[in-house]
C-alpha cells in the first residue's frame, strides 16, 4: 500500500514537473494576425526606413546575422545565414561562414555571391539606386566572396560597431542574378529565403504570408502563416486585440491601453515591457541668442525634474526611464547612480532649479524671459512631454510658448533652423553607440544635428569610441562623450526614454520583446498555443 501510494506520488510529481516543459513545447499550426500601424511604400529594405516595412515583410527574408531572439537587450549577435564568423587580429577583416543548403523561395541556392551583391547594393549602390544605410558602412572598403560558403568584409579601420551594424533587420539578402538584371526589382517584388513565402499584399489592407516548407531551419517556422493588417488608428488596433481578432501589435501600446486590455481580458493577455530605443530630445538652436550661451542651455536641462517626471508621465505616456545617450539596461548604458551625477539628472530638484536660476542670471537672462518651443504635431508622446517641459521651464522663471507643427512639415522647419528650441527625436533599429551618438556630431558632419553646433572635441570622442574594440575602454570614452554632450556643453537635452509596452494574446509564444520595434519580426520562433 505504502509502495503504491509512493509510486502514485512520484508519478504525480513527475507529471507536475513535466507541465511547464509541455507548455513550452512549440505547437505547429495557426495563423498569426497582427495590426501594423504603417504601410511600406516599397518592399526594398535597403531603401526604406519604416517599421511598416519590417513588420509585414521581414518574415520573407533572412539577414546575414540577427539579434538573439531570446535576448531582451536586443544587442547580442546570433547566427542567421552566417553560421560562424571570425575577426582578424588587426580588427579590419571579418570572415563569415555561410550555412549550406539555404534556398531562395524560387528554389535556387543562396550563396556568398548573393550576400556580396546585397551588401554591395547597400554600401556601394549603383548610380540611380538609393541606399538609406550607406552611411553606416563608411568604414567598409570592400566585400568579397572567395568561395560560395564564405563572405569577407574588409574595413578601412577597425570598428567597435561593425558587427552590430550587420544585425540590421533591413539588410535583406537578395538574389544576385535578379539585382544584376534590375537593381530596382526588389522595390516592387518579394523573393527571399525567409521562413515565410509571400502570398499577397492588398494595398491599404493586408499582407499575407504562408509557411516556407523548405526553410533551412528544420522544424521552423511553427506557424502556418501570418496576416499583417494595416491599421492606422490605435483605437482600432486595441479593439482588434481586445476582440481577439488580432494576437499582437509589434510596435507598442500606451499604458492606458495596456491597463484596459488587462482588465478586460485578464489572463488571456500577456504583457511584455522594455525601455524603447526611441527618445525625444530637445534641440537647442546654437545660432539663436541667448541659446548660444552654454549656461542657458544648462539651465534648460537643470530645470527638468526627470525623476518626478518619470513617475508621473509613465502613467499616461509611452515614456519611463531616465536615460543618457544609451538605452538603460543595455551594455553601453551609464548606470543610474553615475547618470544621476550629471546636471539635470540630480535627484534633488530644488537644488537643480536653484542652480538653473543662478546660471540664467549669470548669463543675463531676465526673469520671465520668453521663447517659443516648437513641437511636432503627434499626440503621443510629444504632447504630454511638451506640456511637462513647459511647466518645468516656467519653474525657473522662463515663459515658454508652444507652437505645434504638422508632423510632415516639421522637419522642413527644423532643418532650416527656423526655431529657438524644438523637440527632436531618434529611433534606432538596434542599441549601438555608433548609431545612437551619430546624431550629435557637428552639423558639418551630420545635417541631422538640428542644434546647429560644431564641437570638434565631441567629434573626436565619437571617432575614438568608434575605433575602440575593447568594450571597457569604449565605455569610458562614451561616458566622456555623454558628459560633454549633456552637461558640460548641454548641446542637446534628453527627455525620458520611450517605454515599449506590448500586451499580446497569451496564445502567442516564442516572441521576446527588445528595446527596438524593428527587431524580432522574422516570426520563425513564434507559435500559437491554440
Amino acid at each position, binding site marked *: 500500500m505504502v509502495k503504491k501510494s509512493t509510486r502514485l506520488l512520484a508519478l504525480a510529481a513527475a507529471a507536475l514537473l513535466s507541465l511547464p516543459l509541455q507548455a513550452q513545447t512549440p505547437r505547429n499550426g495557426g495563423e498569426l494576425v497582427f495590426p501594423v500601424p504603417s504601410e511600406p511604400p516599397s518592399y526594398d529594405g535597403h531603401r526604406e526606413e519604416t517599421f511598416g516595412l519590417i513588420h509585414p515583410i521581414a518574415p520573407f527574408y533572412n539577414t546575414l546575422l540577427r539579434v538573439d531572439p531570446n535576448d531582451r537587450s536586443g544587442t547580442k549577435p546570433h547566427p542567421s545565414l552566417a553560421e560562424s564568423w571570425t575577426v582578424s587580429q588587426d580588427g579590419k577583416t571579418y570572415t563569415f561562414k555561410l550555412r549550406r543548403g539555404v534556398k531562395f523561395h524560387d528554389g535556387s541556392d543562396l550563396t556568398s555571391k548573393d550576400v556580396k551583391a546585397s551588401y554591395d547594393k547597400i554600401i556601394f549602390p549603383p548610380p540611380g539606386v538609393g541606399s*538609406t544605410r*550607406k552611411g553606416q558602412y563608411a568604414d567598409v572598403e570592400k566585400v568579397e566572396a572567395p568561395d560560395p560558403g564564405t563572405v569577407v568584409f574588409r574595413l578601412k579601420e577597425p570598428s567597435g560597431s561593425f558587427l552590430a551594424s550587420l544585425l540590421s533587420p533591413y539588410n535583406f539578402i537578395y538574389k544576385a542574378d535578379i539585382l544584376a538584371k534590375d537593381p530596382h526589382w526588389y522595390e516592387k517584388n518579394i523573393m527571399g529565403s525567409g521562413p515565410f513565402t509571400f502570398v499577397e499584399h*492588398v494595398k491599404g489592407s493586408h499582407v499575407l504570408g504562408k509557411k516556407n516548407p523548405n526553410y533551412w531551419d528544420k522544424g521552423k517556422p511553427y506557424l502556418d502563416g501570418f496576416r499583417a493588417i494595416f491599421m492606422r488608428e490605435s483605437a482600432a488596433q486595441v479593439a482588434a486585440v481586445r476582440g481577439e481578432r488580432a494576437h499582437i501589435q509589434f510596435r507598442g501600446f500606451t499604458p492606458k491601453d495596456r491597463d484596459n486590455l488587462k482588465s478586460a481580458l485578464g489572463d488571456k493577455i500577456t504583457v511584455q515591457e522594455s525601455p524603447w530605443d526611441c527618445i525625444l530630445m530637445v534641440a537647442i538652436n546654437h545660432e539663436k541668442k541667448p541659446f548660444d550661451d552654454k549656461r542657458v542651455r544648462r539651465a534648460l536641462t537643470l530645470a527638468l525634474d526627470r525623476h518626478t517626471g518619470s513617475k508621473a508621465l509613465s502613467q499616461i505616456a509611452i515614456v519611463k526611464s531616465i536615460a543618457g545617450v544609451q538605452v538603460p539596461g543595455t551594455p553601453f548604458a551609464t548606470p543610474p547612480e553615475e547618470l544621476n551625477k550629471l546636471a539635470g539628472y540630480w535627484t534633488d530638484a530644488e537644488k537643480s532649479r536653484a542652480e538653473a536660476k543662478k546660471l540664467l542670471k549669470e548669463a543675463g537672462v531676465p526673469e520671465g524671459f520668453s521663447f517659443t518651443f516648437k513641437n511636432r504635431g503627434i499626440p503621443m508622446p510629444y504632447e504630454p512631454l511638451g506640456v511637462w517641459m513647459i511647466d518645468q521651464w516656467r519653474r525657473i522663471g522662463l515663459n515658454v510658448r508652444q507652437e505645434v507643427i504638422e508632423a*510632415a512639415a516639421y522637419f522642413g522647419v527644423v532643418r532650416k533652423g527656423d526655431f529657438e528650441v524644438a523637440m527632436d527625436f531618434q529611433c534606432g533599429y538596434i542599441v549601438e553607440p555608433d548609431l*545612437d551618438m551619430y546624431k550629435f556630431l557637428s552639423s558639418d558632419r551630420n545635417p541631422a544635428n538640428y542644434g546647429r553646433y560644431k564641437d570638434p572635441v565631441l567629434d573626436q570622442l565619437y571617432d575614438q569610441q568608434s575605433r575602440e574594440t575593447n568594450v571597457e575602454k569604449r565605455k569610458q570614452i562614451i561616458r566622456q562623450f555623454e558628459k560633454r554632450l549633456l552637461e558640460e556643453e548641454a548641446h542637446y537635452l534628453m527627455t525620458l526614454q520611450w517605454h515599449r509596452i506590448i500586451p499580446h494574446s497569451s496564445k502567442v509564444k516564442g516572441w521576446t520583446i527588445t528595446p527596438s520595434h524593428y527587431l524580432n519580426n522574422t516570426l520563425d520562433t513564434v507559435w500559437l498555443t491554440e
Partner: protein
Amino acid sequence: MAYYILKRLLAMIPTLLGVAVLIFLLLRVVPGDVVEARYLTQGSQFQSQDLMDLERKKLGLDQPLWKQFTSWMAGIARLDFGLSMWTGAPITEEIKLRFALSLQLAIMASLIAQVLAIPLGILAAVKQDTWVDYAVRVFSIAGLATPSFWLGILMILTMLIVFKWIPPMVFTPLWVNPWENLAQLIWPALAVGYRYSAVGTRMMRSAMLEVLREDYIRTARAKGLWLKLILARHALKNAILPVLTVMSLEFAFLLGGLVVTEQVFNLNGLGMLFVEAISHRDYTLTQALVMLVATFFLFVNFFVDIAYAWIDPRIRYR
C-alpha cells in the same frame, strides 16, 4: 434640354482646370515633400542629402513648377494620372482598390438615410407639434449633434463589451462573400447613415410643412381627397426638391470625406487614402484624388439638376 446638358458639361472643364491649378499650388506651398516624409520622419540617425536629391530627381521634383504642372496636365489629357510618389504604383490602381469600398459604403449609408429621412420628415410635418413630431425632432437633432466617428466608436465598444465581437478587419467584396461584406460595412453605414438621415429628416420636415400650407393642398383636402394620396401625389413631389439637393451633396461628400469613420472601423477607403496621401506629401496621388472628388461633385450636381426637371415638369432648362 440637350443644349443645356452640353453647356453644363462644357462648363465643367474650366471648373476642373481651376481646381487643378489650386490643388497643384496649394500642395507645393505646404512645407515638406514626399522625400522628407520618407527619409526624415522615422528618426533614423543617418541622413543623406545625396539620397534625398537622387529621389527628388527621380520624382521630377527638381523640375520647375510650370514643367511639373504641364506634364501633369498632359497626362490627364491622356487619362494617365501617373504614379504615386510614395508607392510608385499607378494611381488608377491605388484608387481602384479603395473606390469599390467607398462607393458601396456611400450607397449603403444613403439608402439608410433615405429610408429614415423621407418617412420621418413627412410624419413629423403631418403630425406637427404632437409627440410624434417632438420624437422625430429629438431623433434628428441628436443625429446632427453626434459625430459619425463617435457613434462608430460607441458601436464598436458596445459590440466588444456586450457581444465580445467586432466587425471583420479586412474588406471582402460583396460578390466574394456577401455576409462577411455586410458584417463589416453595415456598422459604419449605420453610423454615417444616421447623421446623414438627420439632415434629410429636418429638411424634409420643413419643406413638407411649407408645401402643406399651400392653397392647392388646402383645396385637395377641402374636396375630401384622401390624405395619403395628397401627400404622395401633390405634396411630396414639391417638397422633395431641396431634400434631393442636400442629400445628393451629402452623397458626394461620403465618397472621400469619411476619414475618421474609416479609421475607426479600419476601412480601406478613399478617405484614408486621402489622409495618407496628404501626410506623405504624395502630390500626384493627392492631386488625382482631389480631381476625382471634384468631378464626382460636379456630376452629382449635374444629375440633380436634370432630376429637378424630371420631378417637377414646371422646370424647363434652356
